[in-house]
C-alpha cells in the first residue's frame, strides 16, 4: 500500500486472558469490526488452534485441519509454502483474518528445529530469538504498511504463542467476566505480562480491561463489574446478550449481524455497538492516536448509563483533529 505517511500510526494489541470463557474471541472479533467501521484496516491474527476460535467465528477456518495447507507456523520458522499474503482472508470490509491452523499447537517443536537448524551457523553464545518470530514475520511481510490495526487472539494460555503475541504487540486488552475468578484473572495476566516484560526488557501496556457477560440483575456481577471499572479504568462493559451468540451463529461480527441479519435491534441490544465505538475511541487515545469526533459520521457512542455512570470519550478536538493525529505519529 502507498500513502503510508498520511496514515495513522499502526496500533497493535493482544486480546488475552489466561482463564478461558472470558469472551476473548468475541471481543477480538467485534473490536476488529469497530475499528473497521471508522475506516481502519484491521488484521486479526488468530493464534488459537483450538476449536471455536476467531477464524471459526468468522467462517474462515476451512483450512485449519488440512495438513497440506500453508500456515503461520510454517512462516514463523521460515518454511512458508507460499506467499504470506495468501494466508490472509477477508472476513468483512476492512477486516482481514490470518486464520489459525492445528499445526500451531506444535509451534514449540517447529521453533526448536528452526533453532537447531539456523543455530548450526551461529556462534556458541548465540541465542534463538524465539519470542521475536511473530514480529519478524509481520515486519518482513509488510503488515505495518498494509494495516492500521493488528489484533492478536492467542489461546487462553501463557505459552510461547502468547509471548510471541506480547512481544509483537506490546499491548494487551483483557476481557474478564465480573465474578471473583474473573476479577482475579486480571492479576494472573499482570503476573505473566510483568514477568515477560522484565525478562525481555520491554514495556507492555495494559490497554484496557473489559468486563464481559455482565448480568446487571446479579448483585455480585454488579459489584465486580464496578470494581473492574474503578480499579482498572474499564471504559465500558458488555452484557451477556444473545446477539453475541447470534453473530457466532451467522459467522459475522456483531456489527454485521445488526446491519445485515437483523431487521431491528432490541432495546437491550441498542448499546452494544455504541459501547464498542467508545471502546475503540479509548484504545486509540491510549495509543496516542485519538480519533476525531467525525470519525463516526453521526453514529452513537456510549456515554454511560445508570449502572455504569458517565463515560468520558477521549476524542481529538474537532477542529484540530488532523493536526493532532499527525503529530502523534511515531511519538511515545
Amino acid at each position: 500500500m502507498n500513502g503510508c505517511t498520511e496514515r495513522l500510526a499502526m496500533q497493535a494489541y493482544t486480546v488475552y486472558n489466561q482463564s478461558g470463557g472470558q469472551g476473548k474471541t468475541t471481543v477480538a472479533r467485534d473490536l476488529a469490526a469497530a475499528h473497521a467501521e471508522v475506516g481502519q484496516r484491521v488484521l486479526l491474527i488468530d493464534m488459537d488452534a483450538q476449536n471455536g476460535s476467531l477464524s471459526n467465528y468468522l467462517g474462515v477456518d476451512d483450512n485449519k485441519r488440512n495438513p497440506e495447507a500453508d500456515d503461520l507456523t510454517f512462516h514463523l520458522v521460515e518454511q512458508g509454502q507460499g506467499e504470506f499474503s495468501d494466508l490472509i482472508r477477508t472476513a468483512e470490509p476492512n477486516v482481514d483474518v490470518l486464520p489459525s491452523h492445528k499445526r500451531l499447537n506444535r509451534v514449540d517443536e517447529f521453533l526448536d528445529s528452526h533453532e537447531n537448524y539456523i543455530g548450526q551457523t551461529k556462534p556458541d553464545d548465540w541465542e534463538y530469538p524465539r519470542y521475536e518470530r511473530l514480529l519478524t514475520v509481520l515486519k518482513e511481510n509488510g503488515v505495518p504498511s498494509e494495516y492500521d490495526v493488528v489484533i492478536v487472539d492467542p489461546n487462553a494460555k501463557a505459552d510461547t504463542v502468547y509471548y510471541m503475541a506480547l512481544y509483537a504487540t506490546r499491548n494487551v486488552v483483557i476481557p474478564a467476566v465480573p465474578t471473583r475468578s474473573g476479577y482475579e484473572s486480571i492479576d494472573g495476566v499482570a503476573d505473566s505480562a510483568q514477568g515477560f516484560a522484565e525478562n525481555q526488557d520491554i514495556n507492555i501496556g495494559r490497554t484496557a480491561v473489559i468486563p464481559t457477560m455482565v448480568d446487571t440483575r446479579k448483585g455480585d456481577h454488579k459489584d465486580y463489574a464496578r470494581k473492574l471499572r474503578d480499579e482498572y479504568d474499564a471504559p465500558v462493559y458488555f452484557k451477556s446478550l444473545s446477539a453475541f451468540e447470534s453473530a457466532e451463529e451467522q459467522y459475522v461480527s456483531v456489527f454485521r449481524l445488526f446491519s445485515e441479519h437483523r431487521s431491528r435491534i432490541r432495546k437491550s441490544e441498542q448499546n452494544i455497538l455504541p459501547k464498542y465505538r467508545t471502546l475503540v475511541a479509548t484504545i486509540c487515545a491510549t495509543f496516542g492516536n485519538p480519533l476525531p469526533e467525525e470519525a463516526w459520521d453521526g453514529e452513537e457512542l456510549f456515554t454511560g448509563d445508570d449502572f455504569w455512570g458517565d463515560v468520558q470519550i477521549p476524542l481529538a478536538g474537532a477542529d484540530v483533529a488532523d493536526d493532532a493525529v499527525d503529530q502523534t505519529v511515531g511519538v511515545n
Partner: protein
Amino acid sequence: MGGSFESGAGDDPNDLFANDDTDEEATEEADTQLEQADETEAEEQDTAAAVSGESEATAASTGPASEDDASSKSGSVVMLDIESPAELDAARLAREFVPDTYEKPHAWALGRDGVNDGRAEKKTFFLQSSVLDLEATCSQEVNEILDGDVPLTDLRELALILAYHQPELLAEAAREWGAESA
C-alpha cells in the same frame, strides 16, 4: 527503559516495526534472560502438547422422543389446582415451579448455577417450524417487555406451565384439531 507492565500504552509497535537495529540490540541484551524463560517454558510446553489433542466427538445427542412419556405420567402424582383463565396468576405459578432443590434467597434465574439447574428431565419435542417461529417472535416480545434476555429454556418451561393450567383452552384447541373423534 523497559521491563514494565502498566496501565496505558506499551512500547510503540511502530518503533518496533520500523527499526531493525533496536530490535537486535534488545535481543542481545535479553539473551541471557531468554535462557531462563526457555526453561520455564519447557514445562508448559509439555502440557501444551498433551492438551492439544482434540475432543470433538462429544456433541450432545438427544434420543428420539418417547411417545409413552405423556401417557405414562397421566394419572400419576402430578395433581395441580386448575384455575380458570381469569384467575391465572403467572407470578405465583412461576414461584411454585421453582425447583425444590433451590434454596438461595435470590430469584431463581439469578442464583442458580446454570440454566439447567434443577431440570433433571430431558424431552425431545416434535414441532412444526412455524411453532419455532412463533417461539422466536414471542421470545423477542418478552425480551422487549423486560428489556432482558430470557433463556429459551426458561421461556419454554414457563410457556408449558402456563399453558398446562389452561385445560379448557387446550381442550377447545385440541377439539379443533379433531381430538374428540380421534
